């Protein structure tokens, strides 16, 4: 179960100038924060999300 993320914040992220992989990264870390009953290990989860965002950015750069 998850608690919803503030819709305004999600809109802010979507409408921002951030690169898409970073937008996704921000949304994902907010998802982590909204997960029910799963405390701790934030560092690992965040690092995994950073890794994902990095790979996506790299892929985008190569495609460009």
């Amino acid at each position, binding site marked *: 179960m998850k608690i919803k993320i503030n819709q305004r914040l999600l809109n802010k992220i979507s409408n921002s100038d951030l690169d898409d992989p970073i937008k996704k990264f921000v949304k994902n870390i907010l998802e982590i924060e909204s997960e029910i*009953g799963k405390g701790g290990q934030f560092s690992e989860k965040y690092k995994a999300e950073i890794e994902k965002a990095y790979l996506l*950015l790299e892929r985008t750069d190569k495609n460009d």
Partner: protein
Amino acid sequence: MTKILNINIENYRPFYGHNNFEFSTSDEKNFNVIFAGTGGGKTTFLDAISWCLFGKEPHKELSTESMLNDIADAKLKNKDTADVAIEIFLGNKQDEIDCVFRRRITFFKNSLGKVVPLPNSEHFSAKIKDTRNNLIDAADANISANYVFPEKIQHLFMFDGEKLETFFDSDNMKKTENAIKDMTQMDQLDNAISHLKNVSREFVSKKDQENSELAEVDAYIGGLTSRIADKGLQKKETEFKRDDAKTNFDQLDEKLRTLNSKGDLEQLLAEQRKFEEKRSDLTKRLADLENRKFDHLLKGIPIIFCRTELEDAIKKIDKKYESGELPPDVKIEFIDKLLQKKRCICHTDLIDGSAARKFVEAYRNKAPLSKYEPDIRKCHSEIKIMIRGISSFFEKRKEFYQQINEIKDQLFDTRQILEKLEKQIENIDDKEFQSVKAMREFALREFQKYSTKVGEITSSIHDDELSKLAFEKARQKIEKKLIKNDEMKKKFEICNTALNFLQESQKSLLIELKTDIETRTNEIYKKSVLEPRVEKIVISEDFELQALDSNNENIYPQLSKGQKQGLATAFMIALRKDSDFESPILFDYPLGRIDPDTRSEFIKALKNILTGVQVLFFLIGGTEWSDSEKIQMKDRLGIVYELKKSKIEKRSEVVKHA
């Protein structure tokens, strides 16, 4: 959308045995009602929910009664056990359970025959749906319960009508700010920022973290952090003083009103001034009439009323006679008339031997006889006319005196009123009134002083936070330089870009939320509460919820209890609209304080506002739940339960109405 599907209550207080409550999950019929008379168990029902979720019974804090139902208690034999249990099923539809919370405690009869809770028997568990839609045991039932119904904002989904009416009476600013932050999941944002900061630090190796440049920036950040913390404490203290001054001001204001209810001193003094002016005006008019009462003498026919007037009239007649304006014969006739009629035109008795008669006779003897005298003596008819004339003047004179008397009466009334006013003014304890007034003004000045100080500290903290942010960005640059590995450098950048974005968003989001919640509260309040004096509801910069009148004066303290409840309800509902918070609303005593004249408007507003959310109303049968409320809610009614207090046993019977 989370809804309460079922609640099972077993042996909890007035609910004997198993009691199942099933609620409507329909969006169209989203109003569920539980009504009861006094002692029926309406509030206990709310306590049951609270106990199940948080292990606390808000309305039973001081109760020493056992939680086990009396009948179950009485049926227990020695060393037997009985359970008290509450289960709450949540989900979207009856056949789609997302979550179950269950709390149970066991009671047993000890060797002394006393029923007591079995040590460590209280157990709380939760089942939540996993990704495969299976209900599995939650790792931590308390965390799960808090995500669905966060305990710290319990008051924002479990509305207590009586508490709502005083919600903004104290700590208005703090409550408003916290409510906005809590209901809009701002804590998620706070946590994300804090976690991002920690992760960001881990990109720099431990060795590089000892870099002198970094150490210097860290020292600045550390200094600013402790300064912000100190100022935060100072702000809290000042806020406490400010709230104290506000409470003091409100109390003194109330006291002043009580003193004023005996009769406002200022108002009485104003009345007194008004009547003093009237008295002075009447006195002047009376003096003027008194002066003009001799004017008729100048018109030729003397009318005399008393010795003084007689003397005065004679003097005036002499004057007229000497100047030739008055024929001498008139004078003689006048004097004769006086002597003949004795009091026909005079209020002074000219009885024989009286001083007045002697005076008139002496004057007649002195009166020079004119050459016209013989003719005049013959003209009896003329004399008759003159007598008639005297009568007509006498009538006029009466009118004149009537005017004088009327004014005298008015003057008398005015003096009476003034005397009464003086007594009323004396009755007001002037010293107490003035002293309370002075204390109230002092409290107001204190409140304003501390409010300004809070504002100054807030802005100073804001400046420090900006500086800290600048140093943090500088730190990021240094850190970036220290990271040699390109890949790490890029990852570090991702982390910090997100961090900077979230920090910026945090600030603007709160301002946006405040503005929108303010607008929505206004819309809802105006739909539901009839208070023509309130022009608009405002959430000030320091988060004080205010009700402004047309002069921009905050008249919140003057609102009635029902209006205050209406305003708090409007605010709570406005908050929910922005929060995406999906839990049902449990609304206890929603209509009790609402003026019967505005109740139907309030229900109409609730129906407009409370859409797409399941609502459980807890109403007092008869008072809050009568035929008119049933008719007004009919189109939105889901399931209605009646809790009937048994006359024979200590229990509440549950009656389900279609």
